[in-house]
C-alpha cells in the first residue's frame, strides 16, 4: 500500500508583503493547467531546496476552494525557527519554481453543523480564509472571532471585515481587548461546531473551556501543526534498513531517517496525520512525545513514536525502519 500524496510543479506568480511579519505567496501550475479543487481547511506541503537540504513545511491554503487557477499561502516569519519561514521570506520570489503536495485536509468543516463558530489567533487565520469563502458561497452560517497582537499585525483583518461585516469580531491585545470566551461558548445555538486554529496555549484554553461547559468532543475541531522542537542530539538504530543515525539538535527524527535514504510515509510533518507512526523495537531512555496523534496510552507504552515531531533522550533507541 503506498501512501503520501501526488506532487504538483508550481511557479510563484506573486509575493505580497502583507505586514511586517507575513508574506503571501501565489502559486500557479508551471504547465499552465488548473490546480486540483480542495476543501476549506486543507494544507499543502511546500518543498524548499536550500543548498542541498530539503525542507518540507505544511501551510494552509487560504485562497477560495472554488478558485483552481492559483493557490495562496501566507507565511509568518519566524526568526528563531528551523528556517523554513526564513527561506520562504528571503529566497522565494516571483518566478521561483517549487514543488508542493496535493491538498490534504486534516481540519475539515463538519457539514452537519447548523452554525460554524471559528476562533483564530494570529497566523492561525489562514485555514479560516478558505473555510469562510467556501461557506459564504454556499450560504453557510458562520461567525469568526479573531485575536491579533496589534492592528498593524492583524493579517487580513481588513479583507475579512469587508467581506463579512459583523460576522467577524476582532480583538487586539495592545488594546486590551479580550475574547469573551465563556460568554461566547455559553450563548451558541444547538448544533454549533467550534473550530480553533492558533497558538498551542489558545487551543488548550478554548478546548478546556468548551469541555468545562459540556461541549461534546465531536463538535470541537482544532488544527495545531506542532513545529518539531529542537533538542539534544541523539543516536538511533534503524533495524530494518540497518542504519545508524544521529539526529542533530535542529533536525527532526523524520528528517534524519530520510537523510539516511529511508523513506517513511508522511503527510503533515506536524504530528497530526499519523502517517509516519513508527514502531519502537527497544529503548533505554525517555521519549519526548510532541505529537497529537498517538494516545496517552501509546505515549506511555514506549512502543511507538511519531518521528516528525518527537525526540528521545537516552542511551539507545532501536526503530523498526
Amino acid at each position: 500500500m503506498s501512501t503520501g500524496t501526488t506532487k504538483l510543479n508550481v511557479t510563484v506568480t506573486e509575493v505580497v508583503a502583507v505586514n511586517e511579519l507575513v508574506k503571501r505567496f501565489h502559486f500557479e501550475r508551471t504547465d499552465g493547467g488548473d490546480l486540483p479543487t480542495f476543501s476549506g481547511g486543507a494544507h499543502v506541503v511546500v518543498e524548499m531546496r536550500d543548498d542541498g537540504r530539503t525542507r518540507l513545511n505544511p501551510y494552509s491554503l487560504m485562497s477560495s476552494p472554488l478558485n483552481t487557477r492559483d493557490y495562496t499561502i501566507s507565511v509568518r516569519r519566524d526568526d528563531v525557527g528551523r528556517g523554513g519561514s526564513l527561506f520562504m521570506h528571503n529566497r522565494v520570489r516571483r518566478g521561483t519554481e517549487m514543488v508542493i503536495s496535493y491538498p490534504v485536509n486534516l481540519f475539515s468543516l463538519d457539514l452537519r453543523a447548523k452554525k460554524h463558530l471559528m476562533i483564530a489567533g494570529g497566523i492561525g487565520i489562514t485555514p479560516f480564509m478558505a473555510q469562510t469563502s467556501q461557506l459564504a458561497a454556499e450560504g453557510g452560517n458562520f461567525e469568526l472571532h479573531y485575536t491579533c497582537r496589534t492592528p498593524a499585525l492583524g493579517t487580513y483583518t481588513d479583507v475579512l471585515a469587508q467581506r463579512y461585516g459583523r460576522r467577524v469580531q476582532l480583538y487586539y491585545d495592545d488594546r486590551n481587548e479580550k475574547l469573551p470566551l465563556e460568554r461566547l461558548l455559553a450563548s451558541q445555538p444547538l448544533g454549533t461546531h467550534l473550530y480553533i486554529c492558533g497558538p498551542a496555549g489558545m487551543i488548550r484554553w478554548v478546548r478546556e473551556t468548551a469541555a468545562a461547559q459540556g461541549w461534546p468532543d465531536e463538535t470541537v475541531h482544532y488544527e495545531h501543526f506542532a513545529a518539531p522542537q529542537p533538542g539534544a542530539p541523539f543516536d538511533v538504530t534503524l533495524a530494518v534498513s540497518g542504519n545508524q543515525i544521529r539526529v542533530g539538535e535542529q533536525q527532526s527524527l523524520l528528517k534524519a531517517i530520510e537523510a539516511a535514504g529511508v523513506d517513511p510515509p508522511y503527510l503533515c510533518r506536524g504530528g497530526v496525520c499519523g502517517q509516519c507512526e513508527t514502531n519502537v523495537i527497544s529503548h533505554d531512555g525517555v521519549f519526548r512525545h510532541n505529537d497529537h496523534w498517538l494516545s496517552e496510552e501509546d505515549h506511555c507504552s514506549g512502543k511507538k513514536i511519531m518521528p516528525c515531531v518527537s525526540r528521545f533522550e537516552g542511551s539507545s533507541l532501536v526503530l523498526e525502519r
Partner: protein
Amino acid sequence: MGINFRKETFRDDFTFRNSPEFVRRFPFPFHEDAYMYAVNIEPHVPGPEGSVLENLIDVDEHYVAEMEDRALVLAEDPLRCQSLPHMTLAGWDLLELLMTEQANGYPEHFSLSRDGDRWRWINRPLGIDDTFTFGDVSTLPYGPMEYITRQSQGDFCILDQRDGNLWMDAGMVTTQADWSLDFDIGMNFFEWHAPVPLAHEKGIFTRALKFLTNIQQGKPARRLNWTMTINPRLDTSPENYHKWGTDRMTVTPENVGDKVHLRVELQSFWRLPRSNALVFPIRCYLIKMDELVTSPKWARRLHRVLRDLPQELADYKGLTRYRPTVVEWLSKHDDGAPTSAGFGPD
C-alpha cells in the same frame, strides 16, 4: 469503435449474457488456488488495455441494461437512493468525478463541456443532453448524486469523514450482495461491518479504516470482493429477499452452468475534493459457470477455492445450500493440473 450495448434483463426471463470478449476481461478475483480475507488494497491506477481496469470508471456492454434495471428498482423502492442533508456537496463532487471519467474514457458515448458553472452533459447511450448550473440543485431533475448514479454502472456509497471514522451518509445501492443502504445509513465503519465473520478478530477493519481515512485526492485505491449469485440478478437486496432467497434451492447438477454465477465486486475508494468525503463505488460483474469454464485455469481454480472455503465464509456469503452441487459440477473441469500464478485466464 464504440461499445455494442446488449439488450438484456437481470430479472424475470434473465437474458443476461457476456459476449466472448467480455468473458476474457472478467475480473477473476483469485490469484491462487485458495481464498482467505486480506486487506487486499492496491492503488487504483489504469490497467492493461481491454481489461476492466483500462479506465478507472469502467463502462461495458451491460451499461444500458443495468441502468434500466436500476430505474425499475428505484421505481419500486425510492429508499435505495438516500443522501443526508449535509452530503449534497459530496454529491456534486461525485457528479464531477463520474462525468469527467466517463467522458474521458468513452468520448464516443459521453461528452462534458464546461463554461464556468454552466455544464453541458451528453449521454448518447441513454439519450440524455442536459445543460445545468454546477452547484445549483434546481437545474437538475434529481439531486446531483442521484442524477449521475442513474447513469453510472455500480453502486455508490459516499462516506463522510469525521471524528476519525467514516459514516455511511449517502448512497445509491441497487445491485448489492445482500446488504441495505436504508438499514446502514448513518452508521460508521465498524457498525456497518459488524456482521462480517473472522475479519474483526484479525484486526482487519481497524487497519482498513486507518488506510481509508488517509486516502488522498488524486490517489484512489481499489480491492476486489466476491460472492455467488443464483440467476444473473443484480438486485439481491434484503428488501427483496423474498424474490431471490428461494432461488438458492433451485440449483441442480443439470442447471449449474446457466444458473450459478460468480459475482465480483470491484470496489474503489476516492477522496472527493470539495467535501473531503470518500466515495466508494462498488461495481458488480457477473459471469455464468458455463462462461467461466471456457477458461480451463479459472475452472480449476474456482473448483479448488470453493471446495476448500472455510464454512463460516461459505455461510456468510450464502453459499451453504448449493456449494456441494457446484463443487461437484466444477470438479469435472478440474483435472488436477497446476494453475499458473496471477488472475489472468491463461
